[in-house]
């Protein structure tokens, strides 16, 4: 293959292509940074929500602790454990 002088058109096209890819690269980089920032923000939000969820579950387990439930049932609601003779078991 003999080296043929590139036509002006080819040159121009290559220049345009170079510029376009360069700009594309810059844009992609920028986009990546933006997206990373967004990801970080969302992750932080997710973490906060997870922490809040755990905190709520903790409070729930504190409020629903068994001794409190039992005391409420016995003292406030006057509930008693049914005697086995008062229990009817229906076998399928």
């Amino acid at each position: 293959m003999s080296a043929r002088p590139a036509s002006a058109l080819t040159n121009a096209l290559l220049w345009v292509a170079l510029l376009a890819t360069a700009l594309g690269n810059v844009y992609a980089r920028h986009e990546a940074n933006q997206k990373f920032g967004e990801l970080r923000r969302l992750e932080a939000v997710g973490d906060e929500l997870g922490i809040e969820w755990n905190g709520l579950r903790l409070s729930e387990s504190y409020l629903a602790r068994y001794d409190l439930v039992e005391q409420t049932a016995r003292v406030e609601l006057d509930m008693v454990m049914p005697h086995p003779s008062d229990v009817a078991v229906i076998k399928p």
Partner: protein
Amino acid sequence: MTARVRKKANRRKPSTTPKGNSPVLTVAKWRPALVLCGLGLAFLGLAARAVYLQVVPLGKIPEGQRNAHLIKVKLPAHRGPVTDRHGEFLAVSMPVDSVWVDTAAFFPGGNDRVEALSEAIGYSSEHIQRRLSRYMHMGHVSLRRHMPPKKAARVMALNVPGVYLRRDYRRFYPRGPISGHVLGFTNVDDEGQEGLELAYDAHLRSRDGLHLMVRNRLGQIVSGVRRLKPSKPGASLTTTLDLRIQHLAFQALAEAMEERSAKSGSVVVLDVATGEILAMVNHPVYNPNDRSQLLVELYRNRAVTDIFEPGSSLKPFIAAAALESGRYTSDSIVDTAPGRLIVGNKEITDPRSYGPLSMGGILQKSSNVGISKVALDLESRELWSVLVRLGFGSLTTSGFPGESAGLLNSYVHWRPLQQATLAYGYGLSVTPLQLAQAYAVIGAQGVRYPVTFVRRDKPVRGERVLSESTAEQLLAMLETVVAPEGTGHRARLEAYRVAGKTLTARKYAAGGYSTERHVTGFAGVAPASSPRLAVVVVIDEPEGTDNSGGKVAAPVFADVMRGALRMLAVAPDQAPARTAEKAIREHVAVATAGEES
């Protein structure tokens, strides 16, 4: 194209331009070319620089330049939570913030700001000043460790330059002492130190992430660049514990401990069909959230670390060996008269002479003489191998740190006296968990399932260690122990049939077995028609006039078993089932009578 058209238009109408009358400027042809060339070169230079900056990876930029605006930031992740089998939290890591000061940038600006800062932090301003001056040379000074995030946010709201927060995680145990021994705890760096926290540390542990961030002139982080290492929170651990049963066992044991001022105690609840540990509690207790009093004595999960001589609770397994040998059945008669048996230089005694007893009778009366005679009649190797298969003398599969394997000497070293005393549970030692495992075998028709603290994804295959008929006969014999005239009648339940055995063992002290200090307990399974649970209660050195296992431990067993079966919605297998039929008949009778009238 358009340019040319416009040029033509311009030529056609020169008079329309306001400066149309000015003299024509002649420019040398090379000058625009030169300008264009210069501009082109400048652009090329810029483009090259842009390409270099954007395409060449950051790693190739010299260290010093990178550090100018990039900073590596650690992102802490939290340790995985531990839950019970229904997802209730047993241990969870919550964020806490530590307040730090960068002394180079610190500028409180006025005494009132220092006042406000000290108030928000919760320390006196003198204290803060003292800390600052003492650690000034270190660059960064910690003002307060581990504050709740909401309080720490108030510190940051003051906007004092140089003050910043560092996030950590702290472990909380919402159930405190109830599950303390099983869970163990972590150290300040959130590494497991004891219990399941230690055993499953690798599973629970988190990995901190590392991010590359851009900071501005003031050192504030403005944006992120890249993730060097993702942060990975620890995986959660689902244990086999059922918090409801755990709580129940805790209460029942606590009451007995207080009533009897006992030294220590343990309760183990096992699911016989899976080997899952549904509850395990010990006394004395400690609160894993507050470890200001460092007493190793309290941390021990006695149900797996402490051993005791099982006394009478071992007798059913001697009976098992006898049945397995094929030379005995549950009806075989052994003469225990006159209630004394001399082996070697030792006399084995019963409280009184029971005369001829069946195998079931030996267990029901808990006759030492009877069971010793049976044991002496068996091949030592046979007897030993049954005990080994039941898990005595070796670690369970629980994987609990510090677990004890108990003590069971090889039959090679047995002499007749040892073989006889072994029969009623002396000369070997077991943990409460091992005892529960062995009783679970009786409940599971002779199959031993590996015990576990952690939920399995798929059912596990057990290993048959006793024949089905042996297990069935044992179950029937152990039911007689709980009969109204048996030693364990206080373990009876209203709605369920119980099979179990009491234990009252003298403790070995310097110089021999004590007559005053005992280990008492009760081990059993229920409902006897189709066992679901194995429960072992061990209470060490109870005080009081009657400190036998039947008196001290059997009621605890009954409380735990009754509550646990109810919580698991196990159908009653005695009396009430019949009344149910009656109740329905009555109901129907009333209804039909109503219709007729």
